[in-house]
């Protein structure tokens, strides 16, 4: 459906290293990386997301985390968190 198309487009973009969809238990639903790396990313990023969300909501409980971006030297990791899943895209923004 449209979801598949959009996902494929995102994966096909230049600079995109990996795309992952992980459910709330940490099990990858869709991934373009190998399983061990995916699981590693999933675990670490999940913890970070929970911490980030906790921070945001501590400051104002009516607020909530919608997007998380981590810019590092080599890549940029973009996370769209939700109660049931995590959408993670790793991009190399330099051409």
């Amino acid at each position, binding site marked *: 459906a449209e979801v598949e198309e959009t996902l494929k487009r*995102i994966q096909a973009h230049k600079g995109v290293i990996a795309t992952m969809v992980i459910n709330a*238990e940490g099990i990858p639903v869709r991934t373009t990386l190998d399983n061990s790396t995916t699981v590693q990313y999933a675990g670490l990023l999940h913890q970070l997301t929970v911490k980030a969300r*906790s921070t945001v909501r501590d400051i104002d409980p009516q607020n909530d985390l919608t997007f998380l971006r981590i810019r590092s030297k080599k890549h940029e990791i973009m996370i769209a968190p939700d109660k049931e899943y995590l959408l993670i895209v790793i991009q190399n923004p330099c051409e």
Partner: protein
Amino acid sequence: LQVFDDEGKDVTPHPLFHSDPKAVVPRQGKLLASSAHFGGTGSGTYGSSSTSISNTSTTESILDETVEPGSRRDTTVSLSDVQGRQEEIEELLTKDDLDRSVDIYLTETETIWILDMPSVAVSVESEDAGRIQERNRIYADICKNRPGNDRFVEKMMQTINGAAKNKEVQCDQIIMEDKGTTVTSWDLYNSFNVLKIKPTSKAEGSGATAGRSSKPHTTKEHDQTMSVSSDRGSTSSSTMISGSSVLARNHEEEEYHSEVILTSEKFQQDLFFMERILMENIFQPKLAAYRQFPVLIDPDVTSDTSRTVAAVKEAKEKEHGKEKKDKEEQKEAFIDPSILSDVNKILEEIVPPSLERLWSYACDLTNGHSVSSMAWSKVNPDLLAVGYGAFDFKEQKKGLACCWSLKNPMWPERIFQCEHGVTALDFSMASPSLLAVGMYNGSVAIYNVRSCNDAALLDSSESSNKHTGPVWQLRWVEQDRSATGDSKTERLICISADGRITEWLVHKRLDCTDLMKIKRTESKKKKLPDEKERKSEALISQQAAGMCFDFHPKDTNFYLAGTEEGHIHKCSCSSREQFLKTYRGHKGPVYKVAWNPFSTDMFLSCSADWSIILWHQDSQTPLLTFSSTTAVVHDIMWSPKSAFVFAAAKESRVEIWDLSVSILDPVISYFASPREKFTSVLFATNTDCLLVGDSNGEVGVFELQNLAALNSNKVQLTR
């Protein structure tokens, strides 16, 4: 027995015991049992000679006494009986008895002992004295003999402890668990709100469990997840009733199906945002240039990109510098010593104006289609609608209309598939989400951009009046209705190859009325009366195909129409048949006419005869003719910022003309790659960029650099 005193009052002592005359006389045995009671009511002497009297002795004494009360009881009973009998008898007393003498016996009742405290002291002279004295003496002797006497032994006794018996009991170890939780403010907020959410989630959960067969999920899985358990823990700590938490967990279990995740709307939205953010990352320098922001250089970026970025940055600075100068001066500012010195500060030489390609709106879907028209949204200057369709008859295929957003240059926001090639489109002003599309088969469709639905909102296919030729241009025009006051209404006007300019009414069905029929006009060549007349009669149709039109920017009653013959007619909305003026100059079909937005007496026209002509509306001969190459000019547009600048799309290149600089040559000439042909141009209103559509389906976004006089808007072109 009755006793009367002196006054005759009855002072008969009432018996202390009133027994019911009908009652059965209690027997002696019963009396004994209830002796205590009787002792209370009757007379009772509790004889006691010493304080340590056991119960038995009291009963004995009472027994003694009870005999007396018993006897007395009998007497009282008998007394009451007598009384009763007496009462019975009294009734039978008559007057005669009053005269009888009655014997009255006064007797003394028995002594009623109320309290008897026997004395401890006895008189010496009583009979018992001797005995008591003897007893006292013996007691005194005993007391004397007591210490040291063998008969008195102090003995200590030890209580016997019973034999202790150990008994062991074994029980299960009571498992203690320490539990602590850190409460955060959002946790409190959640707990507070969960009471409201709980009833709905309960309903959902029950619905889900009822609908599907829940797969058994072991708790091990739950424990394995890293911090999800803490999440769940926090939610379960906030739910009061365990039942609801079980329901919620079941509900969550259903959601773990991956398909459910993938098809959820939230996921779609997240994907949408993610794509946009990706685009932003990829296109950030280009988008910044588009917006004319200083471009940030990523410190870790490789060297060549930094060079181009720096170059862009420098170009920006130059342009800014130039623009500032231009504001002070009205006319040409290109060769100005002050600017030269400014330029020299940054670079040694004057950089000629150029078009820098930023990016292009293209995707797989649009590959192969030729761009026929472009239009900006009236409300959102970053939203672009592009129509794809071929101009030639031979190349006709299904057309496409796409809405592109600045935020995502690689995939259009909306895709509308059309049956026929799209030849014209325009956004409405009054209702900004309406997009009108004109097609090659003459039909006009209106799409609602807000919905993702592919279907047209309105279609003109059922209209009886529709065009029979391709709709070459359409526009929403705001017009002052002079009759009904000065409220501006919007009309959709189209011109098509069947020679009619029509106005469409947007109601439930799309229907149109004719504004103008373009008649063929004869050329002004000298003709021989007989021959040419006959020739003119043998024309196929009376009407000339209209290719383009443009309404006057100030006075929307007038408009120009360009025809296939090469004539441009100035028409008025009020007259249906007559033209006000005809401008002849072109030798081929006029593809575009455009009024100068600043100097509203001038207009520009381009045609297939390789030329662009500048006209003044009062003169019927051309003012200026621009022809630089032997290529068909498909599209022209005046720059919205400057009165002198216009862009032209010739087949193999895009030209920017600046009339203040040169009227013979274009200022910028951008050559296309061999395979593509440029078909349309569009200036961006909020930035110095030009959009060029080509035959490959790409809309390239070019930034105008170093273009002088970009901000001048006052013009007085005198000839």
